[in-house]
């Protein structure tokens, strides 16, 4: 009973915003139960014309690149050895791990037979992009979990696993980046099969490459947004200068993306491009607001080094360059002329809002209880005490 009381009083000490998030997550949880009780047909607006809806478009196709920060920053800091960005790595890894865990949950909700998920291993089909993504997401979630275990072990004072994790750190970062490259691009391969369905503004043979590049620059923009939010709301130091370093890399990727996109549009597309006004408008918004304007912004030192403006540019990239792009590819661009329009049902929306809320909530909770912001020098000596026991007194404060 006392433990219960402690938890309740702990939650009461949370900021009001976090308590609202708890309500949203709970609502999402019950909506998910409704999906399994009443079936997909009754609870969603999916049908035979729209077999994939909000859950695939957002919870999988969009969330995966949104969680790309971990692999991108890991590679930048540890492989290219730009050590000054290190303070950003841990929060990015937490975001990545949470993001992928929630992608798995979203995917399980959307599957008709989630209890058969293991069939992917039992009856593999090497020709299926979905098989590839399933394997990659599972293995990447494992890698992200191992990376995430470092702060957990530090908190609990487990020294032996920490030493193992420390040894594995670089191999895990390399492995994670390689796996992420595969599935970030293969999500684009999904839509290569929809040859007569996906509109030509988005359908082209290099879609997987475009998906990978956009995942990379989105990963960096997400890190900027996350760092600014953490500075504003979780009382962490202002990292604007570090972020300016990161922001210098972004326009390169935006530029390559833009060039490839133009090339694909005019040299690789097979059918008419601008025959549907609504799709043309969506495409224009995506390219201008999501790629061209932020690229110009990031190219200017004044904007790069300004905390507010750098956040705005990153926000544009994420909102229009990525989210709108993924919805264009997986939803809007797939709508045929004169076809009924899909919009998500209440339950679909509540589940997705719950998943977004869960991400922010879990991040705040992890940030509250685990050392993800403290800077850990690689020279910290973990050799003194071995074994799975706590060393110095109660490291865990009384609040948990």
């Amino acid at each position, binding site marked *: 009973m006392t433990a219960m009381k402690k938890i309740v009083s702990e939650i009461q000490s949370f900021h009001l915003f976090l308590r609202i998030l708890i309500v949203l997550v709970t609502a999402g949880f019950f909506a998910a139960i409704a999906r399994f009780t009443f079936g997909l047909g009754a609870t969603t607006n999916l049908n035979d014309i729209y077999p*994939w809806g909000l859950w695939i478009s957002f919870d999988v196709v969009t969330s995966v690149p949104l969680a790309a920060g971990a692999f991108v920053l890991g590679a930048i800091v540890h492989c290219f050895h730009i050590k000054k960005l290190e303070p950003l790595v841990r929060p990015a890894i937490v975001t990545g791990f949470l993001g992928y865990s929630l992608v798995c949950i979203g995917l399980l909700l959307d599957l008709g037979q989630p209890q058969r998920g293991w069939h992917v291993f039992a009856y593999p089909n090497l*020709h299926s992009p979905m098989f590839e993504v399933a394997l990659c997401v599972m293995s990447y979630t494992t890698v992200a979990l191992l990376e995430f275990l470092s702060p957990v072990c530090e908190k609990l004072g487990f020294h032996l696993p920490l030493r193992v994790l420390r040894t594995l750190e670089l191999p895990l970062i390399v492995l994670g*980046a390689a796996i992420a*490259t595969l599935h970030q691009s293969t999500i684009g391969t999904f839509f290569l099969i929809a040859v007569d369905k996906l509109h030509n503004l988005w359908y082209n043979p290099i879609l997987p490459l475009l998906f990978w590049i956009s995942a990379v620059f989105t990963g960096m923009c997400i890190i900027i947004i996350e760092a600014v939010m953490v500075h504003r709301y979780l009382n962490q130091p202002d990292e604007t200068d570090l972020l300016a370093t990161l922001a210098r890399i972004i326009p390169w990727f935006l530029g390559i993306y833009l060039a490839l996109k133009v090339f694909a549009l005019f040299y690789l597309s097979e059918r008419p491009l601008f025959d549907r006004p609504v799709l043309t408008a969506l495409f224009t918004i995506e390219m201008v607001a999501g790629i061209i304007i932020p690229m110009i912004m990031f190219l200017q030192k004044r904007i790069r080094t300004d905390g507010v403006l750098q956040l705005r540019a990153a926000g544009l990239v994420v909102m229009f360059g990525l989210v709108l792009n993924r919805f264009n590819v997986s939803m809007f661009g797939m709508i045929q002329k004169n076809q009924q329009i899909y919009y998500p049902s209440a339950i679909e929306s509540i589940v997705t809002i719950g998943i977004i809320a869960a991400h922010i909530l879990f991040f705040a909770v992890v940030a509250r209880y685990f050392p993800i912001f403290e800077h850990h020098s690689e020279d910290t000596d973990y050799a003194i005490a071995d074994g799975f026991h706590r060393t110095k007194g109660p490291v865990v404060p009384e609040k948990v």
Partner: protein
Amino acid sequence: MSTTRDLSNQRTFLIDLTKCTGCRGCQVACKQWNQMEAEKTSFFKGEGYQNPATLSEYTLTTIQFKDYFHEGKNEFSFYKAMCMHCNDPACVSVCPVSAFVKTPEGPVIYDTKKCIGCRFCMIACPFGIPRYQWSKALPLVVKCTGCYSRVKEGLIPACAKACPTAIKYGGRQEMIDEAKRRLTANPGRYMNRIYGLEEAGGTSVLYLSAVPFDDIGFRNVTRRPLPSRTWAALRFVPAAFITMGGSLAFISWLTHRKEKIRRDKEMKEAGHASQKGDRS
């Protein structure tokens, strides 16, 4: 795949729409043989004068009616909708758990025991055939089986058996020859096109029609087999993995080595060369 396999003897439907009377005997026979549940429907829900409106989780084949305008005149036409049993099926290639199989006999069949319900087959199918059990909490995909259970035993599919006029069933080459024979014998009667000959890389259902296929609801489908589109990207996966992992590992080694050399040099310069301050 399709280029190396001999398809000439694959069991194939030849559906001559000029001979179809729209009696829907095929629909009834299909429902009976496959023991599909009855469906609650309402009239005029579909595109034309028909019931049920379309294929569904309970209905594997329908006669699709369509009222349309052609050259300023009201026209009325119909065709039999069913799985096309492609030579190189998109559903087989995209299914992550190999639930779809193109049988050597011709029909594309689906294993209800393997399916995880991801619905990628429904996205992939260029003809929009697979349906989903939306009414169930743990749904599966539903699709025409080409009556594989009958074909395996030397019978012809239930719909072909029931059809009094329009369906001919046999080896693919034989059916193509027959279709061409009809086209040359009666050029005025038919559109000069065999739908399914090249669509999606060729299918095991061939249609002949008196009116343009586009008008009566047939989709304009690419000629190139769909799986080749995804495979063009997927085949790079192992190479991408090795390149990315390898180059990142190499770069890490390089940068860490540089760092070590720099630190060693600093140590020496500071005169602490003998002291073991350097971790590495």
